[in-house]
């Protein structure tokens, strides 16, 4: 048994890029956007279920349908990550930020590591679209915070950092 914790140096990391090669969560990779200031992150792999009843059975039957895959998180808004740094980098996600990718409906590739960016860390990768941005602030919580959802297009692929 090996508990995965998020102690210093082993935190959950999400990297986004406009190409699979750029969304590289490996330590030292700088081509993608490392989403900063995440408060929490949830990976959803929700298998669809179709239920039906038959006259000869006392309980419902069920069959699976394709899964809905989603990554959702909450983050403190970082100006560069949210609005982008403008043109100049090699990646659209860095240039236009989370908001630009959402507004322009840019397909993003992601890698999300469970246990830091060092070798041995398990991670998921895939692609999808940024959605669900809703930055909010108020005087009781005077720092902009936004939820972010990545609606995954297709399946997650599991891998381990080498």
């Amino acid at each position, binding site marked *: 048994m090996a508990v995965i914790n998020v102690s210093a140096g082993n935190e959950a990391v999400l990297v986004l890029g406009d190409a699979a090669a750029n969304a590289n969560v490996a330590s030292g990779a700088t081509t993608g956007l490392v989403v900063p200031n995440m*408060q929490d992150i949830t990976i959803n792999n929700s298998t669809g279920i179709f239920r039906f009843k038959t006259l000869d059975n006392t309980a419902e039957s069920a069959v699976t349908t394709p899964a809905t895959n989603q990554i959702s998180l909450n983050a403190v808004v970082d100006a560069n990550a949210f609005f982008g740094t403008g043109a100049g980098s090699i990646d659209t996600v860095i240039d236009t930020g989370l908001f630009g990718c959402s507004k322009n409906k840019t397909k993003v590739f992601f890698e999300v590591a469970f246990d830091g960016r060092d070798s041995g860390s398990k991670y998921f990768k895939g692609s999808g679209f940024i959605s669900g941005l809703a930055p909010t602030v108020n005087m009781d919580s005077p*720092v902009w915070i936004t939820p972010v959802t990545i609606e995954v297009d297709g399946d997650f692929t599991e891998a381990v950092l080498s």
Partner: protein
Amino acid sequence: MRSTLLSQITTNLAGSNVSVSQELPWNSGGQVLYSKNKKHFYLDEEQESREEFIKTLDKNDVEQKTITLNGYLTVDAKNQPGDMSNVVANIIAANSSITTTIDNSVDVTTEIEDDDITYTFEFNFITII
């Protein structure tokens, strides 16, 4: 922050029965200055405290910084200056001179010892860093 607040209090108390000292409320001969020099307002040095406001997974935590300044004013309890309520209100009002904060507050307490009454003003200025 202390100089800004002190400057605003000096402006607000101009023409009143209370003077504003630029000195810290240090002890002289075993007696604090505001007790020795009645009808003189003294503002202490800034005290700073920080606490975690928002935790993040990458340890870029957001902190809340609170700067506290205590002000002191002692007057004769039996014969307080006639404009004492205005003096207190004007000292409190000076807290709005500090900007770029998310919350400014003032607590006023009094303590009577012998025939003196000492007003203690606790100014709190909160910023997010």
